[in-house]
């Protein structure tokens, strides 16, 4: 019982820490096998959306398909950027590149084959999405329901200002 109380105490303490965290600095390979440092791909004050997804995750693909429909228009308006990080492991990672091209996604796609980035981000499930500005995580969200991309874009606009 003592242990459970300690557990609860640590948990509640951790909750008092809720605020902005830095984006984990982990280099990931892109689908051509080159190492990419995420913070080097964005400009100052540019809003960056990172979506963790997998080829076997139906809601993840629904979300990225849905955003793709508006991506060009939204980018013109707010100059944000989306990086789709696949958490596919060795079983399905070879499927990422043909899927991305087959679907004509215009996102930059990176591979997190042993979930190092997912773990560092403390994401539990996919889809998991974070909004980053000047290397600080300002918003995070898990799950996707049809239409929630509209709510996401409202959030992006709010943060872009």
């Amino acid at each position, binding site marked *: 019982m003592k242990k459970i109380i300690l557990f609860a105490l640590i948990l509640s303490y*951790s909750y008092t820490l809720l605020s902005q965290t830095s984006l984990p600095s982990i280099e990931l390979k892109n689908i051509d*096998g080159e190492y990419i440092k995420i913070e080097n791909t964005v400009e100052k004050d540019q809003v960056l959306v990172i979506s963790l997804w997998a080829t076997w995750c139906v809601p993840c693909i629904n979300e990225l398909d849905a955003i793709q429909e508006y991506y060009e228009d939204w980018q013109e308006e707010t100059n944000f950027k989306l990086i789709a990080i696949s958490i596919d492991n060795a079983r399905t990672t070879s499927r990422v590149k043909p899927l991305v091209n087959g679907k004509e996604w215009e996102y930059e796609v990176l591979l997190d084959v042993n979930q190092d980035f997912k773990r560092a981000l403390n994401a539990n499930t996919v889809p998991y999405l974070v909004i980053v500005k000047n290397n600080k995580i300002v918003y995070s*969200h898990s799950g996707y329901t049809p239409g929630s991309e509209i709510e996401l874009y409202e959030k992006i606009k709010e943060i872009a200002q």
Partner: protein
Amino acid sequence: MKKLKKLPNNFTMKKIILIALALFTFQAYSQEKNISGSFISNSQYYLDDNKTGDFNEDNRFRSNNYLKIDGNYNNFSIGIQLEGYAPQAILNYSPTFNKEIGLGNYYLNYKTKKLDITAGHFYEQFGNGLILRSWEDKELGINNALVGGRINYSPTKEIYLTALYGKQRAGFKLSDGEILGFNSEISLSDLFKLQKSTINFGFSAVSRIQEVENSVPEFTKNTNAYSGRLNISSGNIYSNIEYVLKNEDALVEFQNVKTDKLAEGNAFVFNTGYSKKGLGIDATFRRLENMNFFSDREQDGNVYNQQVVNYIPSLTKQHDYSLSNIYVYQAQPKLSFNPIGKAGEIGTQIDIYYNLKKGTLLGGKYGTKLALNYSTWYGLKANYDLVNRTYSSDFLGFGKKYFTDANIEIRKKWSKKWSSIITYTNLYYNKRYVEETVGEVNANIFILESTYKFSNKKSLRIEGQHLWTQDDKKNWWASTVELNLSPKVSFYATDMYNYGNELKKIHYYNFGGSYTKNNTRIALNYGRQRGGLLCVGGVCRVVPESTGFSLALNTSF
């Protein structure tokens, strides 16, 4: 014969408090917030069921809890994962996890531009994982993190080197075997300043060191494995090739390590693809021979997937629907003579993705997305000498057929409000060889999923599935209704029913709801789970049928 180390309980407790204190002081000194973490809790309350039987084990209520906290300051980071299985871990988790609360993982890391040093627990994968992968999957009850030290060194941006030493986690204990590993990755295209193509070369070596009691005198305790890899990508075309060699190791039969029966292992993987906007093709050929690799030899083939050194997923489509997950292929890397001779597997998988453009006849107003998948897997063609426990195999010989499936998936948006996913699967599953039981299964599966959007916040998803087969448990149907009231609240009901089975017809029904706010999600479920293989990411474990309530909570901070 168990040789696992056990730490005294109070020692771990002190360690937890110490690390927690260190973390908090750390936080107090740092200028900005540099602490993050997550909390996951999965609880079950098991009920008796007049259809599938009473719950006959200890503790109807069981709960798995994970609290992970990471902190960083300048170049240092530190972290812990506390795990609590109170009063006991959920059904079919390895008993090595049964502990009310314990320190699961801890690490200290120092990182600069070129150097990255970790002490404590770490996860690592060399190449595709064929000779080394340590990872965690809470749903499957796998955490084979290495405990020890690791150094990553990147002298230039073209060269990545890793050296590591450690023992794998086995629940709250450590494996008896030691692991020594080295990995290198060199970007030849950067080195030779190639503009239009990428060429990467990789080499890894892993040594597993474990004494075996009463071994024959000439037996060596080290087993070495080597992997060489080459990735080439140029324009629309890419190729990856990997060859793995595992030195002679003892044959293991039902936890018996036979140091006088030795065999070598090897693996060969070739993957190639072509992709451009609107079209992607990917094909993989893989051959595995005697590639089981465990930290502790005696654990070879254990049902909980504990202490596995390498990662050998089945290369088949990973399904998201319930009826597609009844006959799931599992990779067959193991050498065995009993009950049937098996030395490995050989086969291929092909994927094609195609986008029918908007405004064309088949594409319609919104375009249509096609995904085709085909895979076929055979045992190695080999002659087995069952008395002497030896065999000889052909490199390109196809033996018994284990599995084959063909899948077509069509994603179609009909209007602003309606969209559908249509899936058809034809499969063959050799139960006798894959599960080492009896029978073969030929089945067809058809699935229609449609989503109706009432508004940008509210939607309804309906799923109908049917599986036709004359074999095993005969025909099934399944359906799901999911109502998303808002991005925060959703409810669902599902049922699957093997109505074709004359012996035992059972409805596997589930009802539940979830509430999501930002990155916090709470889900409550009541229902009856189908027993059988639970597969996540190509790794499967057998779970019993069970009925009851489940509560899942997860959050990040």
